[in-house]
């Protein structure tokens, strides 16, 4: 389902993904994703507290190729406990935030562990539940230090550069920020519990904000991430409302995506190998008229809708990728005609 204004050109393309809760081709409760310079897609699989074998970083692409995976659940070097977000430096080295251990783990492009840094605390340079991470052209890392309600900037080796923000709901203040994106000269932050997106320059000066809180059609509720296309349209994963909200270059509301997933190639192969499920699925009506329930419950009942969308990115070919966390898949839309 989607509802967008006439001038907003976006079309559902396809879905990549599959539930792989013990590793292997697919994802398990993914939190974030990022694409490196070679168009490879890295997905952070958080997995669950009682089901930790699904925790790893998967490497795939949007053409249904699966290249492998690395890391696993744990607190030792090279392991991750509550991984949250991922980015790359100019050499395609991989940086992953870990909310529980307050560490940033670094791997090479093949997933070989390099090192990690970070320390829990509230003073400058220390972290408390680091969530979103992104890098700029100078290989500096911008991190949503979410329980400290600020953005911190580090060199790739963990040397503190600067920080901004404090707890609050005024401009430049945060309430548990989540996703962060660095675009040339601006930084966009999903100010999660303030239900808005804030925009800063690279020195941390507040520039603008958009989003009204609530569960109406044009509002945001607990946004987790944001992405910007080449025409300066903004796509917000409106996690609490289970949709993607779209805004134009003037931050005017242009519509929403609710999700229209179809079977991925990996899913089709699974069903081909499990004929009883495939036959039963032939009578399956994915979109049903549902009782009066909240958006999260609606998503739990309608398989094609987003269920906890946590991350949005736009690739070089103008594809919008929506990480559909509880469904272990990525729904892909094409922006433009």
């Amino acid at each position: 389902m989607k509802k967008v204004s006439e001038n907003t050109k976006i079309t559902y393309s396809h879905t990549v993904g599959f539930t792989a809760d013990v590793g292997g081709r697919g994802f398990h409760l993914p939190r974030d994703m990022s694409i490196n310079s070679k168009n490879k897609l890295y997905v952070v699989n958080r997995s669950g507290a009682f089901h930790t074998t699904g925790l790893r970083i998967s490497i795939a692409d949007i053409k249904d190729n699966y290249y492998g995976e690395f890391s696993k659940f744990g607190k030792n070097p090279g392991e991750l406990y509550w991984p949250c977000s991922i980015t790359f430096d100019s050499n395609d080295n991989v940086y992953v935030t870990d909310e529980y251990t307050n560490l940033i783990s670094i791997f090479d492009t093949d997933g070989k562990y390099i090192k990690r840094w970070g320390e829990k605390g509230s003073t400058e340079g220390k972290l408390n539940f680091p969530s979103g991470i992104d890098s700029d052209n100078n290989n500096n890392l911008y991190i949503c230090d979410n329980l400290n309600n600020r953005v911190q900037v580090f060199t790739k080796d963990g040397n503190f550069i600067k920080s901004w923000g404090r707890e609050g709901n005024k401009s430049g203040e945060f309430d548990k920020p989540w996703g962060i994106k660095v675009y040339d000269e601006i930084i966009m932050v999903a100010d999660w519990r303030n239900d808005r997106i804030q925009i800063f320059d690279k020195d941390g000066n507040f520039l603008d904000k958009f989003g009204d809180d609530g569960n109406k059609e044009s509002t945001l509720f607990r946004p987790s991430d944001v992405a910007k296309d080449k025409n300066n349209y903004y796509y917000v994963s409106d996690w609490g409302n289970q949709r993607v909200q779209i805004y134009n270059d003037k931050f005017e509301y242009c519509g929403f995506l609710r999700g229209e997933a179809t079977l991925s190639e990996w899913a089709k192969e699974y069903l081909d190998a499990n004929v009883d499920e495939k036959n039963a699925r032939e009578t399956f009506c994915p979109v049903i008229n549902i009782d009066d329930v909240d958006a999260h419950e609606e998503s739990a009942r309608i398989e094609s809708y987003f269920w906890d969308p946590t991350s949005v990115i736009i690739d070089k070919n103008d594809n919008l990728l929506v990480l559909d966390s509880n469904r272990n898949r990525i729904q892909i839309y094409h922006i433009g005609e």
Partner: protein
Amino acid sequence: MVSIESKTNKKEISHLLKRAGFGGSKKDIDFLSNKTYCEAVDYILDNVDKNPVPIDLIRRYQIDLSDVRSVFSSGSYWMYRMAHSKFPFEEKIALFWHRLFATGQNKLIQGKVMTSQIEMFREHGLGSFENLLIELSKNPAMIMWLDNQDNHKDNINENYGREILELFSMGAGNYSEEDIKECSRAFTGWTIENMPYMAIKMRNNTARPYNYVAWQFKFDKDDHDFGIKEFLGEKGDFNGDDIIRIICSQKATAIYFARHIYHFFIQDESPVPQWPHTKAVDDKAINFIVNSYFKNSYNIKEVLRELFKSQYFRSETIYNKRIKSPSELVVNSVRLSGGFDIPSEEVYKATISSALMGQPLLNPTSVDGWQGGEEWINTGSIIERINFCSNILGSPEKKIISKIFSRNANKTNILSFCCEELGYLDLHETTIKELENYINEDEFIINNEYLSILIKLIVSSREFQMV
């Protein structure tokens, strides 16, 4: 009417909060002691915590509690709510119905529908028993648990028809085999959306390709038997709702309901399967509940209001006579310790501990649920019970230690301070004597370390295991 008025005291409020919730802290008890006892009952029954836990925080940080796929994740989500609700009576009543309408994730596979069932108990568990049974019969988890999706108009499956009579309303011996068949006919077509695919995903235990899909009730009129049925002496083209109306009007239903209420809120009864052959512990109390059931048009909250204000509930002879169920013990200890942080890994440990003590939430061992009483205690579970309480309450980081410390305790009053902070815990005189001997040893000094040991000793007592 047997209800009595009396002056409120802290011991009585403590008893009320233990039975109608998960035990009160000193602060809770002091607050309610300023009301009359009947006002305190009304306060507990008539208030609901609309935001018991910050669900957004839980879903963000502990994502498996959002997906609620595994039994421990679903149970942990409920554990958060039980431990944090300001008005935990709705959680206690949900626990009561979960024990009576036992549904288990081991067959259903997905936890989401179990979480939704508990939500249904919160919403309807204090209204009319008739309405609750209708909601139960429409509940997707119950439908799949007792195979009603396989109950077709031309080929009935008697599983749900039998259990709604035997386990959920009347008890064995109060209906015929023919009644079971007619009851089952009335529930044909009560199924879930997309049943064939949902059923095979459950059977194959698979979250593939895109995780579980939460179930939704569907009345399939094409698969419903609209014919005439004869049920408990009445005749008509009964649907499930009509069957439940007839069930709820039976005295056997009122008695069965009353024995469960008594068993959970007053005193341990014999195990349920023995009920057709054993007398109730207190016939007068059962009659009181039965009369209240009919007088209040099966309204559960009003029955409990009358019961809690009656001598059967208020009598000191029943104080601390029930053995805490594992979930009561765990939640009581967590609440006294100051609750969980959010996010927290402690919530997972608490959920597992309850399971190790014999009560895995959302996963009862059978359709009979948990029998309770002495069943909770064996050589393994008692160790788990004591370890859990002493670890969580005796931890120097917990608020309870700092609260006692801040009261400038000395050797004379420290034991009573500890008991007060543990919800005005009533210790036996021999226990008091032993603890006083320990306090009066020269090496005992009032610091975090010894206070922690003292708390551990107190909560290891028999008295703390009772409710």
